[in-house]
């Protein structure tokens, strides 16, 4: 089970704070594809992905128990 945290406009648009994926292991790339298909997040390729609070690349592996976050372009400061 992989938790995917949502923030900002993604959270608003999907109307929830997280998604739970029933997966044991997948690459970040696979996770992006899954989100695009299942949640119609077509802009998912422009998000950064964090695994356990560190930015990840598309080839990184997400395992069950990891906390993933979708990070749309930030605008703090």
């Amino acid at each position: 089970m992989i938790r995917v945290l949502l923030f900002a406009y993604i959270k608003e648009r999907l109307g929830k704070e997280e998604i739970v994926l029933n997966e044991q292991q997948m690459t970040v790339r696979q996770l992006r594809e899954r989100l695009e298909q299942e949640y119609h997040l077509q802009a998912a390729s422009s998000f950064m992905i964090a695994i356990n609070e560190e930015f990840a690349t598309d080839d990184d592996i997400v395992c069950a128990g990891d906390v993933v976050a979708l990070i749309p372009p930030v605008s703090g400061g």
Partner: protein
Amino acid sequence: MFAIVREPIHVGSVIEAVADRHAGAIVTFLGTVRELTNGKKTVYLQYEAYESMAQKKLEQIGQEIVARFPQAKVAIVHRIGRLDIADIAVAIAVSTPHRADAYEANRYAIERIKEIVPIWKKEYWEDGEMWIGNQKETVRYDHGAPKEEEI
């Protein structure tokens, strides 16, 4: 001092956190809520953060600065929640022995915040609202409810 807070930022505490007998310069940056952006009047802002990660990333920025300026002391506090015009959204204080480093390190901190710290700003105007960083998500009230276009 690296923190994400919901209450008004106390600038004096941020500055005190970097005071040092070896400091000759303390440069402070305050990011404040501006009323006009591209001629459009902001009513208020809402900041949201991935708090635990944002805290870590602020600490990382501090470490990056000290790696480059070993005598620097850095403090960064970012506020989230609703902010009104002229409120302080972020305070960055850097002290160094000599002033050129303090200016440079401080500027570095704000640029890095805008790159790697998971904080998002939503602007509210009289006639709409928008998550900044994603211009496509503009919602104009006068055009009715948000469309179901895909994101």
